[in-house]
């Protein structure tokens, strides 16, 4: 990728102004720039704006947009609230050296199909906060995108959700063939599936089937897992066929739901 002009704003206000008024493009981790053939007229670097944090905020956890995967993986607040969920979700992404570069904001804003993190964030019921403070449902954003220019500032996670992540890869550090996260929110179940190979989606029929029972039976879990495979669309790519993805999804969902249910 070529960047014709580069700006390093000193505040999120200035960054957003450059994005909105001068058609700038926000630069997050920039880990995939090398493999991208686009040309940016104006790259707006979000480094140095203080957007690197994971912190408790009442009944939520806030994750700054420039927080790296490695920071997620090693975050004590996240570990305390979600156990090994974030290690499991991002720990397969290439190596530590790349996880020291890739950012949460770049991943969410990019709405990448191969993303592991977006799947988990959708299942947790995360909200994306755009400058200067507009919060939207992250799963909706992943599905529909944003209207007009935006600057993603942080992610809000409900802190009391229990969740488990499952994935299938050809080799440990490859992109996923399929990934899924199941979560119990305290009042219902959420199931997200990504790398279909398209971007993460919620399995609304499967979620409805599970209802608000925190301890669904094995039979109900199997039925929900099968329903998820029926309601989603799958595609074929170099890593797997649509049929293969559809076949393995119920297994992954069953494992994740069973882990959360206990």
């Amino acid at each position, binding site marked *: 990728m070529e960047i014709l002009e*580069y700006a390093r704003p000193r505040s999120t206000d200035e960054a957003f102004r450059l994005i909105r008024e001068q058609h700038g493009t926000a630069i997050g981790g920039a880990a995939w*720039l*090398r493999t991208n053939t686009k040309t940016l007229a104006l790259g707006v*670097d979000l480094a140095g704006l203080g957007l690197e944090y994971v912190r408790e905020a009442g009944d939520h956890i806030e994750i700054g947009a420039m927080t790296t995967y490695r920071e997620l993986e090693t975050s004590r607040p996240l570990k305390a609230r979600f156990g090994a969920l974030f290690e499991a979700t991002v720990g397969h992404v290439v190596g530590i050296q790349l996880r*020291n570069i890739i950012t949460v904001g770049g991943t969410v804003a990019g709405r990448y199909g191969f993303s592991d993190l977006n799947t988990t964030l959708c299942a947790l019921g995360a909200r994306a906060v755009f400058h200067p403070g507009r919060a939207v449902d992250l799963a909706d954003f992943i599905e529909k995108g944003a209207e007009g220019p935006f600057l993603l500032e942080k992610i809000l996670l409900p802190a009391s959700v229990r969740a488990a992540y499952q994935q299938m890869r050809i080799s440990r550090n490859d992109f996923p063939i399929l990934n899924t996260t199941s979560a119990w929110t305290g009042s219902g179940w959420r199931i997200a599936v990504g790398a279909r190979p398209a971007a993460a989606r919620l399995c609304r029929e499967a979620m409805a089937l599970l209802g608000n029972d925190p301890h669904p039976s094995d039979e109900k879990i199997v039925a929900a897992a099968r329903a998820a495979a029926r309601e989603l669309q799958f595609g074929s790519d170099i890593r797997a066929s649509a049929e293969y993805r559809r076949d393995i999804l119920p297994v992954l969902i069953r494992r994740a739901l069973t882990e959360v249910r206990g």
Partner: protein
Amino acid sequence: MNITLHINGKEQPVECRAGEMLTDVLRRSGYAEVKRGCDTGNCGACTVLVDGAPVLSCSYLAVRADGREITTIQGLAEEAKKFAEFLTAEGADQCGFCAPGFALTVLSMKEELSDPDEAEIRHYLAGNLCRCSGYEGQIRAIKKYLEAKHAQ
């Protein structure tokens, strides 16, 4: 663009394009020990430390390194040489192309993890690919190197 890099303790003004990656700037500036491997963020050969953290220089914007401390394997040559003795003893080094990035990641791990077990070592080094060795000799060398460090 004109930026100033601090490489292995030395200040070095360099010119770069806005979208240029750190590998290119470092190699152009004479740091040939930073290897250009896959150039797509997969193999770990181009690893350097930025403010002490290992990053892939092929995927790190050079302009972001402005004013930061960059360490190549030359900057840790003394410790790297000690580690290399363990690699040699275990027959773990063959063509050597991956060695600079591999050694930097090991030295970073030594600072970050106090007493890693084999699973943690393998996890930490998963981003450093070696097409010669099959990794077993390297794992033995790392364990023995860390044991020796703890014994000191």
